[in-house]
């Protein structure tokens, strides 16, 4: 009987807490009651731990807009909360909400959290939102996560945000160009060393002209 009362009390408190959180954001009214309660609890947990809750609400609303069932919405929000926390741990407590959201996306797509930490070290005083967004976007496009992270890290010290976006566009264009072109480039072209050969390609490196 005592256990039953305790459970009922806990449920009532959870319900009050969820109702309180839901009341804070009327957008959650778009969710069905069960989903709303679960998401509200996650949102409240995020707020208490200093993680931006807006991203969680957006994710839940995306699920609602797509008429996803409650378990999927709750699972997606829970996963995002975990990714956001991991991103904050990697990037530091002073990280902005857009940086955390981009970092969480990158982590969700497979980028190691350590890469985010290294990026922060490379650009300690500059916003990381665009660099992290490009890292996530490249990974979503099929670039292996470690390669995407390596590329962004290698460029992070010298590229501005607009250059990062140009870099992303160039990669996108090359992807659209197709792997054969990249294969040809990889085998016969290096930085600026375009060449066409009758064979499968030469190294294209610093080889001297072949004539005495």
């Amino acid at each position: 009987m005592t256990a039953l009362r305790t459970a009922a009390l806990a449920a009532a408190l959870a319900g009050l807490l969820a109702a309180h959180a839901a009341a804070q954001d009327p957008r959650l009214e778009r969710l069905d009651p069960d989903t709303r309660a679960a998401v509200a609890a996650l949102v409240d947990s995020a707020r208490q731990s200093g993680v931006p809750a807006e991203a969680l609400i957006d994710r839940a609303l995306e699920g609602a807009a797509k008429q996803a069932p409650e378990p999927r919405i709750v699972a997606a929000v829970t996963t995002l909360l975990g990714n956001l926390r991991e991103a904050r741990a990697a990037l530091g407590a002073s990280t902005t909400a857009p940086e955390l959201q981009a970092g969480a996306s990158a982590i969700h797509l497979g980028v190691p959290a350590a890469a985010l930490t290294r990026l922060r070290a490379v650009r300690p005083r500059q916003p990381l939102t665009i660099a992290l967004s490009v890292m996530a976007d490249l990974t979503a496009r099929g670039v292996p996560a470690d390669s995407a992270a390596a590329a962004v890290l290698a460029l992070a010290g010298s590229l501005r945000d607009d250059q990062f976006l140009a870099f992303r566009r160039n990669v996108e264009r090359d992807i659209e160009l197709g792997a054969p072109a990249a294969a040809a480039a990889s085998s016969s072209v290096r930085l600026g060393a375009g060449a066409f050969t009758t064979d499968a390609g030469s190294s294209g490196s610093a080889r001297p002209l072949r004539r005495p």
Partner: protein
Amino acid sequence: MDRRRAWLPLALGLAAAPGLLVSQVTGAVDLTAADVHYDGYLPSLAASLSPAARWQQGLFTLDARATLLRFESGNSSSQGLVAASAFTPSLGRWRGELAATAGASRYEHFASYRDALAAVRLHFLAPGGGAWIGVTFGGTALGSAARPVSAATLAVWSVRRGATLTASMTATRIGDTTYTDLSGLGEWTRGNVILNGALGARVWSRFAGRGVYGEAGAVIALRPSLALVFAGGRYATDPTRGSIAGRYASAGLRIVGLRPPRPERFDPRVLLASHRDAAAADPPVAPASIEFTSAAGTCTFVVHAVATRVEIASDLSGWQPVLLAPAGQDTWTVTLPVTPGLHRLNVRLDGGEWLVPGGFTPVADEFGGSVGLFVVR
């Protein structure tokens, strides 16, 4: 006159570039010093200057490259090359390629070579790699003596973690000279270092020598516009361009110029690997495409789709469907407030399914569908 002719291809390539889309012109200049030992000649030190440029537009690429080499004897040599390549739209996992090149070289007043080649290749894409088969036709001339060139190549390539590997077999006929080369190429990128190597053998040859050859090189990027380049090894005779076998070791600087600093070439492996999971063949064409421009905290979307009603839903709209306004034939537009960062968006035509419009990066949305990613600065 002959020296000018040798530089003509480069001049043509560079002169044409500014009139095209400058934003897609990239290039670099190599300054290197080398210790080279051509077969049958004494070793010699040499310095070289090698500018190169590339213009790329969609499936078309135009390259121009030149090398000016000065030996310790005071003699100099020059070489120029232009190359063009155009890919066909894909047909499933297949894609065609047409390529052509024209080049010339000259060593003092002793010899001058010219060549013009055209190639047709058929590429097959598979997850993690691919293969191609190609044929090359053309001609090469030493002075006034011209010879026809024909070649056939079969090659396979693969991308593995951190490395790109290519193996090929090429059979070449130049006049009465014939030979077959087996070749393996590898490239490994880590951080700001690109290592590459080649190992090959000329196994069947008539008048072109036989043997094993190999080269290795490294590019160490100091910054996006500057790199150290090192290379060395032994290479085989190339009868097409009149070169003879030799050994060399070289070191120098690579200055990446023009604009942009070609960061996408910083890690060629990324580009190659990027296609691996982005569907070995092209993804299906989306029934809607989207463009956007952002300024002053707002983002204007323009959707191209054949529909009577077009909506978007995004984190920018709190995932409330937003009806777009017609803006011309099959064109729809809306402007929404935006913040910098990574955003998610879907488009819906005539009340149908939520789609990822062409132009955005598709990713699984965790709700059983897909969502498009886009980045706003």
